[in-house]
């Protein structure tokens, strides 16, 4: 948040007064329009619509970028999406710049800025860049592309045919002429999934530029047109990558990664009144989750699927590793499967190497935002120790047996090993395990634990352990070079509504991962927007094993804002979800 000016004079109230004034004026205007003669009424409506559109164009034009390789070569377009100068364009616009990472970005102020290419998404034809040389940049907000409807006004801006010599963007206006379109790619590259179709003129050079809605929000990135035999120019069919798809890839793109799209390696076909799996590749995501040939696909990620095209289109909008929920039907029995998507490998002319400095910058930003969320404004000391009590509830439907809840205590004090106590069904006390770094690493190396703790519990213990030792240390004492920003994941969907994370608005977390030798990785997910700890997961293998703890109900306790609930899921392969709820904790 950037604050301008002082707080005196209560700007909120002033703004209110301004709003009321404007509302009254517009009321008088629209009423006089409503009761005037039809011709002047419609003229009024047109004039107002024109004035609104002009105001929107004026407002967003400074955020539109002319992207080029060098001064004398044609290029594409882009748009800045945050004040630090981060912007979006098409992969195919910067594909030639990926190696040297540098290009030029021209803004409507007539200035040229150095442009640094960050992450790329060849499958989705998106890339992120950062403009250099200025403190603050004009930017536009990303809108909700799922709210876009056929017939909405669409405003495309950019630099078609490299017409602009002073970097002032060209503007074309049209309608949204199709939504949720699917346009095939070239192999695994340049696939336009769930894209927006428009008849606003899109021409060569418009690529990478924004498609705005009437309110001036970015609903898509223009990048593709249908062409007739006449040539490569506008024939009324332009396609924009939807903003909601892009949002899921932005964390990875900001972190300078090669973003990969998800796949489940299964195909469906349209049959009478149903969409049916006709091929499920053994060993891949859909197969591991338990999908079989002949299963009927009902919904994916909460949306009903009504055609094979729809399935491909929706699936293509999710990143690799993303957690999806899918509803299928077998022998008239509905089932819900939850699993992570596998990775679709884009084709690159040369291997992409991540810029470590860019990635480290994102790690620092996320961890600092987390630290300040935990401690608030003051620089409070991290907790000296923590005790969490947990209840484990078995999923009754899994094997048909009802197992009574089990209770555990996990406690940790700085410098001491972690203690894990199984309290028994009646909190009576039971097994007790001490767990330190040596044990943790030995465990990951595959050797036996010093007790008969079941494998699932051990993984939970392990994940908790690493969460504690990594995240409750003061930031300065951590070796941040061990960490890597690995993009976004989704906050696990809640089935009972009880464990919905507090910042579920975006439903997304930014992930920082740290390798734990010899073959494990612990990943922490911080909720987008507020930086709170949303997830911690441990993945190790082969064979691929995963436990994810989902944190929620963040509360302030002794000056620290920490989660007070957790839900656990494990065994991605079988798709089953175990649940633990965790309350109470005493710093």
């Amino acid at each position, binding site marked *: 948040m950037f604050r301008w000016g002082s707080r005196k004079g209560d700007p909120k109230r002033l703004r209110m007064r301004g709003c009321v004034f404007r509302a009254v004026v517009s*009321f008088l205007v629209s009423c006089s329009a409503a009761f005037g003669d039809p011709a002047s009424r419609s003229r009024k409506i047109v004039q107002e619509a024109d004035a609104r559109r002009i105001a929107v164009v004026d407002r967003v034009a400074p955020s539109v970028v002319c992207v080029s390789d060098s001064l004398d070569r044609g290029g594409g377009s882009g748009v800045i999406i945050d004040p630090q100068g981060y912007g979006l364009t098409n992969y195919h616009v910067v594909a030639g710049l990926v190696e040297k990472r540098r290009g030029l970005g021209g803004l409507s102020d007539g200035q040229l800025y150095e442009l640094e290419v960050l992450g790329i998404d060849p499958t989705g034809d998106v890339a992120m860049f950062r403009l250099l040389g200025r403190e603050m940049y004009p930017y536009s907000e990303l809108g909700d592309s799922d709210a876009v409807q056929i017939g909405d006004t669409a405003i495309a801006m950019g630099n078609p045919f490299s017409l602009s010599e002073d970097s002032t963007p060209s503007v074309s206006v049209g309608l949204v002429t*199709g939504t949720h379109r699917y346009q095939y790619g070239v192999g695994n590259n340049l696939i336009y999934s769930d894209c927006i179709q428009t*008849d606003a003129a899109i021409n060569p050079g418009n690529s990478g530029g924004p498609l705005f809605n009437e309110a001036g929000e970015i609903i898509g990135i223009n990048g593709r047109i249908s062409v007739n035999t006449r040539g490569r120019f506008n024939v009324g069919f332009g396609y924009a990558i939807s903003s909601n798809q892009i949002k899921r890839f932005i964390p990875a793109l900001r972190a300078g990664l090669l973003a990969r799209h998800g796949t489940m390696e299964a195909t469906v076909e349209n049959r009478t009144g149903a969409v049916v799996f006709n091929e499920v590749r053994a060993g891949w995501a859909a197969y591991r989750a338990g999908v079989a040939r002949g299963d009927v696909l009902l919904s994916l990620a909460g949306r009903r699927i009504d055609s094979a095209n729809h399935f491909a289109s929706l699936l293509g909008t999710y990143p690799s590793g993303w957690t999806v929920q899918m509803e299928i039907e077998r022998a008239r029995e509905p089932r819900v499967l939850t699993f992570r998507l596998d990775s679709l490998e884009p084709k690159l002319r040369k291997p992409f190497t991540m810029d470590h400095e860019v990635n480290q910058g994102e790690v620092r930003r996320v961890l600092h935002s987390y630290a300040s969320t935990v401690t608030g404004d003051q620089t409070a000391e991290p907790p000296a120790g923590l005790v969490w009590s947990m209840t484990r509830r078995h999923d009754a439907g899994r094997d048909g047996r009802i197992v009574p809840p089990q209770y555990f205590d996990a406690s940790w004090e700085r410098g001491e090993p972690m203690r894990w106590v199984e309290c028994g069904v009646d909190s009576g006390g039971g097994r007790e395990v001490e767990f330190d770094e040596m044990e943790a690493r030995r465990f990951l190396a595959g050797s036996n634990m010093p007790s008969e703790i079941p494998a699932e519990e051990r993984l939970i213990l392990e994940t908790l352990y690493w969460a504690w030792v990594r995240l409750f240390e003061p930031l300065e004492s951590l070796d941040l070079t061990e960490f890597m920003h690995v993009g976004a994941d989704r906050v696990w969907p809640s089935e009972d509504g009880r464990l919905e994370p507090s910042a579920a608005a975006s439903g997304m977390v930014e992930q920082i991962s740290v390798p734990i030798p010899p073959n494990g990785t612990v990943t922490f997910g911080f909720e987008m927007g507020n930086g709170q700890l949303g997830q911690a997961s441990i993945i190790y293998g082969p064979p691929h094993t995963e436990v994810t703890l989902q944190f929620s109900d963040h509360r302030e306790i002794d000056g620290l804002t920490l989660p007070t609930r957790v839900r656990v899921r494990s065994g991605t392969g079988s798709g089953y979800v175990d649940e633990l709820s965790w309350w109470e904790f005493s710093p």
Partner: protein
Amino acid sequence: MKVRAGIILVAVCGLVSIVRAGGGFEKAIEAALPRVVKLYGLGAGQQKGYGTGVIISADGLVLTVYSLLIDADTVRATTADGKLYEASVVFHDRERQLSLLRLRGAGQSENAEGNGSTKEFVGASGAEGTVRLKPTIGPFPYFEVSCATPPSESAPCGPPLRPGDWVLAAGNAFKVADGPEPVSIAHGVFSARTRLDARRRLRDFPYRGDVLVIDAITNNPGAPGSALVNLDGEFVGLIGREVISNLTFTHFNYAIPRDVLADFVKRGLEAESKGEFMAAPQVALERHEAVDIGIRVSRAGYQSVLPFVERVIRGSPAERAGIRKDDLVLSINRKNVATADEYVAELAELAADKPIDIVLRRGRRIITVQIGAPRKNEQPTP
């Protein structure tokens, strides 16, 4: 308190602007999308095997253009709800380049296997004495095309259109939509009602009646047969076949006006009730293969080079016309060709049965030759 009253009043009056907020085409879109079908049939060369039609009766009469598409054994139609029907030809008119189809079948979901029993004849609706052999399909949402009184030039049927009025076309151009997905729309203004002097490739377009000229880009594969509606969602015309203006050589965006369609449909239904069912029309398969006049031009990889004649095939029409090696091709049928690629592209546009005028430069002389009746080529011209 005053403030609150003001806000409520604003909210009431605000409704006016909310209605106009989304581009203003809502009514047109709502009317057009459910009344358009995606057509699938025969395709060859540049003629695509997909197109668009407009439902014009509750029992499934569909209006579309006259083209190779409907020459297929089975033309298939997908309605806006994703159901798949077979469509058979009721009537067609080569002069007006229009076809009338009738949907048949049970309305399967797409890709469903055809069911033999549903292929039986369904009687025409409305005609007296006709016995319905099977329960009718539908009812479908449809556009009314017929006119209450016989239309005249001064009083054409349908809503009046003035130049500058907004229009919206709805159809499956480029086959963007699949199954139940809504077809594409395109918006623009009505420019003029006029007559058309146009051609399809090298053939003259036979239709000489009135057309509605629009500035929405509708001259695209799959778009012919799209519905054209006004802002109120009233049907005003049918997007015609892709043509090129003989005057300006531009690709023309136009629609056949509703009164012409009404007359065509009336004749079609009369023919149907008299039992004059038409077999699938024998639409001449238009030849688009490249013609070979026996010239090989110099080409160098991807670079654009001047269209110099590198070799003249012995006994070819080019040789007979006196074309020699090292001649520079300047134009073909009055169209300038600047590069070897343009020469090849231009040649590919030519029909095989018409003479070709070629202008050449030989040394410092300009030579005009005419090549008659070139042969078709099985292989593309290199």
